[in-house]
């Protein structure tokens, strides 16, 4: 399906305008944009305006002893941008719930599984029903 709309090119333009590194992946339809923790919300907002209408998931992973939070954002043409940020001690991320309403459960899962502080995430009710030590990945 081709509609002439190129989400990846627009996303790369946004990244270059803000001096955010862009990395290719094994897939030609997916790229990685790396931002700092303080730019997390703004980058997500700009990508949504560039055509990233679908938030696939927000999650975290440990790569080479570094903790990254990633958000997979897709356009209507199913091209994908992986927005990524490295989390250091004391870093807090802005919640993406305002942009994509479904983000809150993903962010809750990231908090419970990886102890990443995300502003606006409720601590009162656990998603995974465990009141004692959170899961560790």
């Amino acid at each position: 399906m081709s509609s002439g709309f190129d989400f990846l090119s627009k996303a790369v333009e946004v990244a270059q305008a803000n001096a955010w590194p862009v990395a290719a992946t094994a897939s030609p339809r997916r790229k990685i944009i790396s931002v700092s923790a303080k730019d997390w919300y703004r980058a997500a907002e700009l990508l949504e305006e560039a055509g990233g209408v679908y938030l696939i998931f927000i999650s975290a992973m440990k790569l080479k002893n570094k903790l990254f939070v990633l958000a997979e954002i897709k356009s209507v043409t199913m091209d994908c941008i992986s927005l990524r940020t490295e989390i250091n001690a004391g870093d807090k991320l802005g919640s993406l719930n305002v942009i994509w309403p479904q983000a809150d459960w993903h962010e809750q899962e990231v908090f419970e599984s990886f102890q990443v502080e995300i502003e606006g995430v409720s601590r009162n009710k656990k998603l995974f029903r465990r009141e004692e030590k959170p899961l560790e990945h």
Partner: protein
Amino acid sequence: MSTRLNWSPGVVAGRKMATGPFSVEIEEDSGLIADAKFGIGYIHRGIEKQLTFMPYSIGSAYAEKVDFIAAPTYALAFVGAVERLAGIEVPRSAQYARVLLLEINRIYSHIFSIAEFSASIGHEPAMQFSLRTMEKYKDLFELYCGSRLGFGAIRLGGVFAEVTEGFLFRTEKALTDTKKYLEELDTLIAHNPLVEQRFRGLAPTGLSKGNAFGLTGPILRAAGVSTDLRFSGGYLIYQELKMEPPPIWTFGDDVWGRFLQKIFEIEQSIGIIGAVIHSLPRGAHAIPVGLDFIAAEGEWLETIEGPRGQINCLVVSEGKKSPVRVKFAPPSLSAVRILPKILRANRVEDLWPVVASLDISISEVDR
């Protein structure tokens, strides 16, 4: 005066109100739902974490447990990501076999959903006929790979075994029986004015105003949004079947429309299976992949069209025998998120039909 009603996870799962345990709390006011809260986490097994301990070649055995109803589909999501990462070219005969197994799985899943919906409205005959037809597809999976739910059917590098003439014969018989079942369903529910009157216009998702929750699959297609990765995504050999993308019938963005969409997609899958059977090439069923298989360093996000919607699987490799991170994004998570919104101001007795119409698999929400 409002009343709080609780359904515990055991009651929800035990009475087959949903495909798994999750808790339901609703605020009821004069018979209408004022607010609804859903809690998950009762079936969390840490599958994504377990996959990081397993060699790639047996990872599919864990991946398919994410959703027991769509086991081959989840197996494909995981092995597809690994194969793309490693550059493994699956034999064409195995790709055709995979499409055959996936569409059999899709029909089975949709019939399961119809059985659930029929049970939620108290329509016992439709539920029993659906369960009877489901058994035929379980028999097919048992004939093929020994597991009635399709565990082990799709593996890294190909499929479990070569597709035999006997299996194709039994598949065609099952399709013939399914067409008779659809005629019965037509009489029992699909053309039953009482059922339609109750559910037409009930619980619209509001997709015409935007897809804020990221819904995919039959829920989206019922509302008239044309999106089906089988025809546009270019995975496996769907596009080689030269099937025209189906016309978008807007069955309606309501419980009734979602029910009719399931029936339509069963008919669609019957057509796809027929096309595969007539063009299935002979050849190897798999490329051997051993326990010491190592995927190249990198990552791949595989997206496939599952029975409930798009399944995304991210596999990240650091060049070792196991992935360093696996993440599944299931379609049912968006459906659970939208439930409180679409249930408000509806009757309490409509709660379970609405839940059943969204075809939620709690197993994949929780992982």
